[in-house]
């Protein structure tokens, strides 16, 4: 059903609009209007679905999301979800109106209402998702938006603490929920809740049934602030009060209860269900209602009272009976109304008196009679006084508990519920008494009835408390029937009067017992303060601090700042990993050796010697670079020996470029440095290196001894037909594995741009300090830069050679590029040849002159090359083939005869541009740097001379 997408989408849209508007618009009314209007519109959009639901259909909508994993964004409006949707949107609407009056002029409105709408949308998402993965995502979104709202006044330390704490606790639960959901999905073969339910017998027998239950309970308990995770909720009261009313009493914390109710049909026969859910719920209810009585801060009292009521609902669900679950749904509905009213009136009180402490309040019934009337009604509903909605819910719940007790022949449950209700009644009395009736500690000045924006929602909700009680069949029954249909086959009738049975007796005890406790409150509080206090915050602090300290310790140990240590750890790890694999594979086999001419042994020997010499000469740098070049040449020889002409060609040009690069860097570095490393370290490293070398040799020999199977036959068999090329290596690069190549030139381009930023971005700040510490800015002199002859241009020989070689060389490059598809060659090699040739011009004529003659922006070249490669790929895409599919055509030309143009050629051209661009950019940048360096030194010398002359 299409309207479902509007229901869920509109609040998100409002959030987005608020975000965009925040740049320009500062008026609070605008944002409040957007938020409230979208909540209302969303509610209207939900009406057709609700109507369909009452007619027995179930509105749904599916949007494929990750179909390969069976994850869809599927919405399904079941009864419970529908009830929640109405609750979320109606209260959201009221809260948006209230917040417009509540926020002060200096509170940024876009951030508040944007997060509020985001929260509303996510919450609707939670209750309407049929797909459990989608549910988890929306669940996390409620966590995040709640974090943003609690920390709204982030200049307050307590607000930051509360926001962070709630994020940690509920996100932890969110992860547990995700894990549980994944287990359920695995056990059932689907993530759609409606489908999981159909195979529930299979799921119940699966060995992951119990772990999934435990994890989902963890998610639910953290969200609903059940013991021992309740401690975050009182801290979350640092949020602006409309947020507390909306998130932390009426909706978000009830997501945990919603989850329990949703999963109730699957899990409620599990033997752990009653002890865990019922037990935790009862404990939370008892403990929190007792603690609430002793709070000094009225919002803290309301927070604990919410925790307690959530415990009540959890306990009712924990009974595992359909009646109990239905009772939980009713309590949830009634509690949402009276608790929202209580929070909002507490917000008004705070707004008018600027305090939340009971000690500083009192007698407000005289100052603001209207607000007080409705606040007191809500408090009475919370206490469970007839004929209000709180009484209605409680009676129903007690009835369910009574039936359960009869069935189990134990009245312990009834006893505990009564005790908790006594405390509930007493703190509700206390709230009403201390805020509105007792004598104020000092007379108020300027305290009066609030603005209409603030008062209207309270009046509405307060009236609703009465109406829901006295006209239950109109104001409760319709919504309750929808909501309870998910958990209970036959939906019971709600009625205010249940007769003089056990439930009524329990209510009576609670109402009068509560009054007694309230009277003896001072005594009890004194007693309470003397008892040892258990504080969830302290455990939380200890745990988080311990984690952070542990992480810091670990990081400092591992990240000591010594590259050598990192390498040791890495190498040792690789050795252990590889060795264990080698040992599993039956240790070592010696392969059959192919005979070779003795000349090749000489080549290998030269390579080994040169490599060792490179290591030995490492402090004598020119010698080391020379040895390294010999190694490079010998590696090329080995490529030829091993039938890899493409590699040999590529390596050849790379060697030239690398040599140029190293020499260019050596222009700046000392040619030789003193060896100051302790010999012990060197011996240790040598030993490790030797071990690695022997290990690699052994590993390779074992690999040789293994039977060999390759996928390459396919390439050989199809290279000509599919890609129109005979050089299989090149065909693989530009065609079969074109994705890899595209990725690779991307890396190349990024490296090039990284180099550019490293050198260039500080270029404009080139400066030198004179004696007076004043920066001396210098002009770039048009000097030549050369590697060979320092400063004054290079030798005529090199200049001549460079001139002669340039054009034929470029033709060779073109030829290599052209034949790449059928013979050794291709974009890489051609690109490097071009780069080497132009690099030679740099050496011969200096960076400046080449740049003037050869006016190319290398960054543009790189970008063009990359785009050319990408567009070739996309071209195939547009013609209906997979990305990077190659096509080719043969053309008849008058003189050249038949020539072939594969589309891969344009791809290869892109490769050429990128490679040539990067290499040349590095060379020219280093050249520029050398010129600048020299200019700077000249300037320094001149400055010194000037100083001396003075």
């Amino acid at each position: 059903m299409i309207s479902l997408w509007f229901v869920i989408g509109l609040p998100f849209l409002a959030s987005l609009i608020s975000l965009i508007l925040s740049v320009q618009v500062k008026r609070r009314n605008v944002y409040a209007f957007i938020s409230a209007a979208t909540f209302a519109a969303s509610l209207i959009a939900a009406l057709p679905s609700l109507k369909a639901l009452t007619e027995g259909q179930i509105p749904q909508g599916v949007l494929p999301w990750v179909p390969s994993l069976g994850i869809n964004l599927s919405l399904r409006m079941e009864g419970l979800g529908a009830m929640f949707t109405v609750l979320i949107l109606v209260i959201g609407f009221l809260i948006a109106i209230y917040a417009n009056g509540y926020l002060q002029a200096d509170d940024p409105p876009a951030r508040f209402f944007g997060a509020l709408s985001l929260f509303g949308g996510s919450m609707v998402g939670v209750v309407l998702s049929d797909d459990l993965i989608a549910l988890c995502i929306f669940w996390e979104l409620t966590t995040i938006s709640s974090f943003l709202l609690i920390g709204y006044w982030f200049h307050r330390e307590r607000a930051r603490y509360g926001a962070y704490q709630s994020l940690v606790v509920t996100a932890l639960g969110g992860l547990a929920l995700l894990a549980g959901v994944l287990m359920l999905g695995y056990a059932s073969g689907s993530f759609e809740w409606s489908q999981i339910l159909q195979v529930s017998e299979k799921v119940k027998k699966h060995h992951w049934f119990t772990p999934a239950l435990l994890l989902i309970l963890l998610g639910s308990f953290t969200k609903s602030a059940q013991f021992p995770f309740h401690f975050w909720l009182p801290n979350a009261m640092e949020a602006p009060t409309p947020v507390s009313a909306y998130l932390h009493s009426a909706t978000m914390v009830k997501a945990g209860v919603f989850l329990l109710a949703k999963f109730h049909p699957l899990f409620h026969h599990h033997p752990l269900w009653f002890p865990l859910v019922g037990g935790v719920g009862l404990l939370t209810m008892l403990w929190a209602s007792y603690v609430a009585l002793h709070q000094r801060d009225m919002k803290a009292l309301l927070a604990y009272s919410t925790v307690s009521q959530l415990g009540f609902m959890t306990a009712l669900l924990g009974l595992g009976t359909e009646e109990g679950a239905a009772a939980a749904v009713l309590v949830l509905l009634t509690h949402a109304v009276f608790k929202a009213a209580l929070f909002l009136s507490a917000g008004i009180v705070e707004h008018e008196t600027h305090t939340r402490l009971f000690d500083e309040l009192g007698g407000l019934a005289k100052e603001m009679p209207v607000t007080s009337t409705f606040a007191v009604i809500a408090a009475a509903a919370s206490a469970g006084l007839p004929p209000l909605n709180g009484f209605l819910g409680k009676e129903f719940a007690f009835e369910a508990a009574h039936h359960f007790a009869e069935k189990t022949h134990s009245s312990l449950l009834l006893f505990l519920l009564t005790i908790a209700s006594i405390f509930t009644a007493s703190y509700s009395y206390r709230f009403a008494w201390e805020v509105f009736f007792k004598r104020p500690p000092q007379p108020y000045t300027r305290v009066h009835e609030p603005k209409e924006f603030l008062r209207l929602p309270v009046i509405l909700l307060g009236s609703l408390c009465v109406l829901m009680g006295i006209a239950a069949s109109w104001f409760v029954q319709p919504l309750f029937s929808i909501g309870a249909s998910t958990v209970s086959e036959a939906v019971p009738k709600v009625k205010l009067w249940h007769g003089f049975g056990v439930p009524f007796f329990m209510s009576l005890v609670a109402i009068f017992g509560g009054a007694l406790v309230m009277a003896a409150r001072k005594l009890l509080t004194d007693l309470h303060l003397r008892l040892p206090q258990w504080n969830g915050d302290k455990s939380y602090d200890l745990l988080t601090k311990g984690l952070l300290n542990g992480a810091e310790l670990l990081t400092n140990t591992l990240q000591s700042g010594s590259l050598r240590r990192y390498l040791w750890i890495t190498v040792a790890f690789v050795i252990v990993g590889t060795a264990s694999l080698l040992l599993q594979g039956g240790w070592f086999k010696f392969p059959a050796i192919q005979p070779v001419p003795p000349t090749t042994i000489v080549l290998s020997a030269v390579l080994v010697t040169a490599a060792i010499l490179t290591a030995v000469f490492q402090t004598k740098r020119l010698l080391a670079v020379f040895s390294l070049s010999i190694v490079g040449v010998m590696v090329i020889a080995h490529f030829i020996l091993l039938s890899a002409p493409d590699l040999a060609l590529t390596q050849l040009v790379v060697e030239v470029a690398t040599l140029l690069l190293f020499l260019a860097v050596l222009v700046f570095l000392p040619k030789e440095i003193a060896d100051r490393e302790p010999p012990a370290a060197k011996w240790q490293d040598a030993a490790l290196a030797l071990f690695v070398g022997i290990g690699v040799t052994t590993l390779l020999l074992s690999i040789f001894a293994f039977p060999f199977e390759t996928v390459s036959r396919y390439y050989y068999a199809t290279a000509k037909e599919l890609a129109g090329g005979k050089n299989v290596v090149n065909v693989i690069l530009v065609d079969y594995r074109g994705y890899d190549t595209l990725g690779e030139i991307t890396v190349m381009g990024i490296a090039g741009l990284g180099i550019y930023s490293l050198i260039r971005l500080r270029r404009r700040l080139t400066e030198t300090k004179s004696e007076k510490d004043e920066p001396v800015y210098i002009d770039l002199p048009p000097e030549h830069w050369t590697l060979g002859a320092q400063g004054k241009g290079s030798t005529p020989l090199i200049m001549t050679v460079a001139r002669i070689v340039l054009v034929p060389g470029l033709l060779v490059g073109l030829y290599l590029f052209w034949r790449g598809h059928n013979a050794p060659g291709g974009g890489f090699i051609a690109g490097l040849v071009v780069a080497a040739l132009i690099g030679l011009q740099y050496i011969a004529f200096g960076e400046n002159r080449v740049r003037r003659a050869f006016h190319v922006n290398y960054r543009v070249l790189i970008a063009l090359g990359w785009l050319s490669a990408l567009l070739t790929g996309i071209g195939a895409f547009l013609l209906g083939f997979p990305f990077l599919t190659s096509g080719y055509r043969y053309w008849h030309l008058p003189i050249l005869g038949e020539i072939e143009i594969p589309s891969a050629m344009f791809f290869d051209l892109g490769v050429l541009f990128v490679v040539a661009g990067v290499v040349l950019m590095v060379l020219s940048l280093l050249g520029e740097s050398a010129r600048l360096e020299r200019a700077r030194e000249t300037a320094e010398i001149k400055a010194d001379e000037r100083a001396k002359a003075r």
Partner: protein
Amino acid sequence: MELQVAIVIGTLFATGIYLLMRRNTFSLLLGLSLLSHGINLFILASGRIRMNAVPVLDGGKVSLTGMKDFVATLPQQYADPLPQALILTAIVISFAVTAFAAVLVYRTYTYAKTESTNLEQNEPHSEPEGGEGAWKP
């Protein structure tokens, strides 16, 4: 051939790692180059050693009818092209990385005036003598 190739590769790994662990940045560049050589050869050799078997098709040998025979004789006729294609990629990438590292070495030296790879406070740095041995134009 197998044994000598294995020893060559082992040496390249050993010297490469030894140089990577040295304390000055330029040796790191040298080590990086040697190690890249070693790894490229390793990948090539793991596709087995085939001499005189260049992976370029001769025009006449491929036809759809003779495919079965052709495929059966492949390992003798041609070297495995897949590792070669991978290495071609690797050569170019490792060049890009080396180039980046080289410029990094240069920048570290000109900016921070150090060639040490060690940031630990308690160990003595092997810093170059403030430009004493440095090349001057």
